[in-house]
């Protein structure tokens, strides 16, 4: 067995197998997108879906009437 064959057998093939396992492990989370983990810090930009610009709301006058509720998790 030449040096090249030995490298292929003991280095390239295990590395290729490792890469395949990594692809199989990480593909589902790449497809699903970012996952929120309760208890860990949150760094994503604020987003207001169905509303306007969240930055503009910072200076808006708050409403005083209406209803609603609060909750924690």
């Amino acid at each position, binding site marked *: 067995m030449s040096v090249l064959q030995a490298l292929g057998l003991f280095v390239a093939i295990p590395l290729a197998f490792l890469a395949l396992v990594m692809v199989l492990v990480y593909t589902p989370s790449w497809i*699903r*997108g*970012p*996952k*929120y*983990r*309760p208890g*860990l*810090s*949150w*760094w*994503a*930009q*604020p*987003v*207001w*879906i*169905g*509303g*306007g610009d*969240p930055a*503009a*709301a*910072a200076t*808006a*006058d*708050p*409403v*005083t*009437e*209406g*209803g*609603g*509720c*609060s*909750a*924690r*998790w």
Partner: protein
Amino acid sequence: MPAGDAFSGRQLEAIERALRQAEKSSGLTYSVFVGDTEGDPRAAGRRLLGALGSDRDQHVVSVVDPAHRDLAILAGSTAAYHLDDRATALAAMSMTSSFAAGDLAGGIVDGLRTLAEHARQPRTLHFDEV
């Protein structure tokens, strides 16, 4: 959570679809804010409603603060007439149970669905006497 967008394209699409369906079925308008509110989602929600101008009365905004694990659902004055506090509490419960399991987008979709189901048209009293 890495820096960047809160949701993937597919998650955003699901939330936007739920918003459209909720608006269609209940006649109210909805939006969802996800971000840091410095621990006071209620005050942030009031400001968000205020920023909507003339649409604020029939609008329902859900404020999700993943950093502080806080949620507030606020309804404008007309929307609150259709959607009582018990209905918003029920939606909040369905949202927080998914949030606690790490599913932000799924919780928002479920919550919007619950809100739309409970946003009832007000009873017309003495209709027969008119």
